């Protein structure tokens, strides 16, 4: 039995993520909510959903999950939305906050870079451009629509980390992949059948990691 630990730091749409994972896992998997470090030690897979502000998220994670970064580097990992953004070096949210620096690049405010008539948050369905073929994209056509809700965007600077990009007046990184770390800006748990397929692909991919 493999345990998928979904990290709870009190401000994400945890329940939607749990419900969608429950839909795609088979009987060899067990889902649990992790409230502190000891809950993730034995987990086979880690999922970090996210909503809210980067600063308070990082503060809460630092106090409840002090060794989270080590676990992220050593277990199959899925980060969603804020759980994607905090993997970068720095977020300009809340006057600038240092993040996990697992992926090179920064997280910036759409409002500082796009025209005034573009609506922020970037909310709704947008195209995800796959940068290369991967098992994570199995049965998902290139340029499929996924559901986004965010005001800050990330841009990865190491080309090989970019699994997909998207455009909202400017081009930004919408999914990254590095070793055992997979994360996306959009919400697979709210992206209908392609979203469920991606979650299912994540489980399949994790089984192939050595």
């Amino acid at each position, binding site marked *: 039995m493999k345990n998928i630990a979904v990290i709870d730091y009190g*401000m994400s*749409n945890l*329940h*939607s993520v749990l*419900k*969608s994972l*429950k*839909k795609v896992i088979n009987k060899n998997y067990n889902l649990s909510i992790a409230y502190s470090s000891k809950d993730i030690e034995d987990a086979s897979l880690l999922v970090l959903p996210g*909503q*809210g502000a980067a600063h308070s998220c990082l503060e809460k994670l630092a106090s409840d999950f002090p060794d989270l970064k080590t676990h992220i580097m050593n277990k199959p990992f899925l980060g969603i939305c804020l759980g994607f953004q905090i993997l970068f070096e720095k977020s300009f949210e809340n006057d600038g906050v240092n993040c996990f620096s697992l992926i090179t690049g920064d997280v910036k405010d759409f409002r500082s870079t796009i025209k*005034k008539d*573009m*609506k*922020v*948050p*970037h*909310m*709704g*369905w*947008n*195209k995800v451009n796959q940068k290369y073929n991967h098992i994570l994209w199995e049965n998902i056509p290139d340029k499929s*629509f996924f*559901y*986004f*809700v965010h005001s800050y965007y990330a841009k990865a600077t190491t080309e090989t980390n970019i699994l997909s990009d998207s*455009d*909202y*007046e400017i081009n930004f990184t919408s999914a990254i992949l590095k070793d055992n770390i997979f994360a996306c800006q959009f919400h697979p*748990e*709210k*992206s*209908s*059948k392609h*979203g*469920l397929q991606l979650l299912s692909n994540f489980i399949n991919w994790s089984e192939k990691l050595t």
Partner: protein
Amino acid sequence: MSVAKRIIPCLDVDKGRVVKGTNFIDIVDAGDPVEIAQKYDNEGADEITFLDITASHEGRNNILSVVEKVADEVFIPLTVGGGVKNFNDVRDLLSVGADKVTINTAAVSNPDMINNVTDRIGRQCIVVAVDVKKIDNDYIVFTHGGRTQTTLKAYDWCLECQKRGAGEILLTSMDKDGTKDGFDVEILSKISNNVTIPVIASGGAGNLDHLYQAILKGNADAVLAASIFHFGEYTICQAKEYLKAKGISVR
């Protein structure tokens, strides 16, 4: 490149069942919320809105179980509204699987509620529903399901909602609602062109061209419709194909 324009079917829920009726007369049971929501999801709905029309206080907990059951099976954004009074109501709906909650009367009677809720759980969760009626060339805000006239002008109120942290505005024209005569593109464009948050058009959809006009002339980010989808006149697929052929970006 922008986001796709959203098509949102709206379901009225009474005591845990989806109901449909014309102008509030002959309300009939239309079935199981989970089955109907699944059908819309399969047809390509971009979001589903549930409006709780349960009149009795005792019946109000039913909406929570409806949302919970739907959220187990349908994986697109779910918006829920109707009778939401305070922070606890919002929290309860989000905790059973709603992604967004619409507030209407409570926002007008206590505008600080918008700030309080969005500060605590983020602006993406809160949709302020604004019901408007044209009176002497001004669009005036109504509350209590359209029964109570306020002194608020629609334009000013929408700007205030945005300033207080609302994530979206659901703008319903009471003059057009139920007429199947088309959306009120005048007030739609006035609001949509002056706020920086998405505006959802509601009230008046009678055919697919109405959806197109709400987007083209009204500059709506999303269109909400009930009867044209419930009574099988059009499927969501047909609406998407129609808009796509007109050059509108849809999923």
